[in-house]
C-alpha cells in the first residue's frame, strides 16, 4: 500500500511523516519522528509503556495506527518537562524513587499526568486504579503511587507552577 502523509501535532509542534496505513503510532513516533520517550514494551496493549496523551485521552500508541491519529494533538514525556526543568511529576518520581530501570516511567508519568488533570485530588485507591494500565516490573508500585500522590499535593500548592 502506498505511503500517506500523516501530520501530527506532537508536543506543540506540527510534524509530518510518510507512512503506510499499517504503521502503528508508536512506530511512527519513535522511528520517523525520533520521539523515543514512549517505549515499546509488550506491543499487545497490556503494559502501557507506549502511553501517550492524545486529545485529552491517555492512549496506548501500540494499539492505534498512526493514520488514525491524523491531525491530533499528542503529548509525550518530552512535552512535559526538560532535563533543565523537570515537570513536577518527574521531580516527584525522582524524589520518591518511583523508578528503577526507568523503562515504564515515560508511560507511567504521561498517564499520571492525565489522571491528575482529571482528578487533581486523588486518593491512593484512585491512583492505583488510574494507573492500572501501566505495568512496572521493578518498583512494586508502592513508590510510584507515593510519587503521584506527592505530585498531586505539590501541584495543589497555591504557589506551584505546573
Amino acid at each position, binding site marked *: 500500500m502506498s505511503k500517506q502523509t500523516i501530520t501530527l501535532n506532537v508536543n506543540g509542534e506540527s510534524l509530518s511523516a510518510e507512512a503506510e*496505513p*499499517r504503521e502503528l503510532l508508536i512506530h511512527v513516533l519513535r522511528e520517523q519522528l525520533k520521539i523515543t520517550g514512549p517505549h515499546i514494551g509488550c506491543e*499487545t*496493549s497490556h503494559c502501557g509503556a507506549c502511553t501517550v496523551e492524545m486529545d485529552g485521552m*491517555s492512549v496506548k500508541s501500540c494499539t492505534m*495506527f498512526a493514520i*488514525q491519529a491524523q491531525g491530533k494533538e499528542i503529548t509525550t514525556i518530552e512535552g512535559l518537562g526538560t532535563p533543565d526543568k523537570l515537570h513536577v511529576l518527574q521531580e516527584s518520581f525522582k524524589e520518591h524513587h518511583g523508578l528503577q530501570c526507568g523503562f515504564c516511567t515515560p508511560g507511567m508519568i504521561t498517564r499520571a499526568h492525565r489522571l491528575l488533570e482529571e482528578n487533581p485530588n486523588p486518593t491512593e485507591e484512585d491512583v492505583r486504579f488510574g494507573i*492500572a494500565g501501566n505495568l512496572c516490573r521493578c518498583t512494586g508500585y508502592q513508590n510510584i503511587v507515593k510519587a503521584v500522590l506527592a505530585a498531586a499535593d505539590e501541584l495543589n500548592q497555591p504557589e506551584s507552577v505546573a
Partner: protein
Amino acid sequence: MITGNFEYHQPGSVPEAVALLSDLGDEARVIAGGHSLIPTMKLRLAMPEHLIDLQGISELKNIAVSGSDVRIGAMTTQAELITSEQLLKAAPIIRETALQIADPQVRYMGTIGGNVANGDPGNDMPALMQCLDATFVLQGPDGERLVQAREFYEAAYFTARDDLEILTEVRFSACAGGFSYGKQKRKIGDYATAAAAVLLTKSADGSCTHASVALTNLADTPLYCADASALLQSKGVNDASIAEAVESAMEQIEPVDDNRGPAEFKRHAAAIILTRTIQEAWSRA
C-alpha cells in the same frame, strides 16, 4: 508486530460507511476503538484489505436519554459511558460495568458498539445488554434493522449482524431498581473468569416486581438466564430463592478449561459471583 497491508478509509457518515462496506465486501472490516481488531490483525488472525474507520462519524458518538428511552451511539467510548451523568441516572449499571472493563487507556478508546458487536464471549457489555433487554440497531444496504440483544449472539464471534451491516446504536429502557455487575477476574484488565449482570426491582411490600439475570464468559455466547429471572420474580428474593436461581443459571453455563482455570473451577466461581451479585442488587433495590 506488524499487521497485514490494508487501505484505510474514514467515512464521514453512516450511509457513506455502509456504501463503502457494500462496495468493498468481504475484504473490508469496520474498525471502532480497535482494541480487539488491531491485536487480532497483529496476530494476522484478521487480514482485512480495507479498514473502514468509524471515528469520523460524529452522529455515532452520542448518548441520548429521553424519558425512559436510552440510546447510545456505537462509537461512544467506555470512558464516555463512565463520565455521563445522565446515563448514571438512567442506568447506573452501565458505569459499574464499564469501570470493570480493561484499563483506563483501553477505556478511552474502546467503544460500546465494538464491545457488543464483535461477539467475543469475554466482552462484558453483551451480557449487560441482554440483562437490560437492549435492542441493537443495524444499518445495511437494505436500510435499518433492529435485533434484540437476547437474539443477537449465535456463537463465539458469530452474531446476527450481516457482514454488510454496521451496528450503529444500542437502545434500552432506563432501569430504576437495584443493580449490580459482579466480575471475577485474575487481574485488572482481564476478561472475566465469571461475571454476572443483575437487575432487581423491589416493590413497597418487599416483593420483586422485575428481575433480570445474565452471565458473561461462561459459554460461547453471553447467557440471558430467563428461568433464574422468572424464579426471582415469582418467589421473591431470599436465601432459598437465590440458591434456586443460581442452580438454575448454572444448568445453562458451558464453561471450558483454559488459562483462567478448569471448567469445574469456573462453575464454582460463577455460582459465588452470581449469588453475590444478586445479593448486592437486592440490597440496592
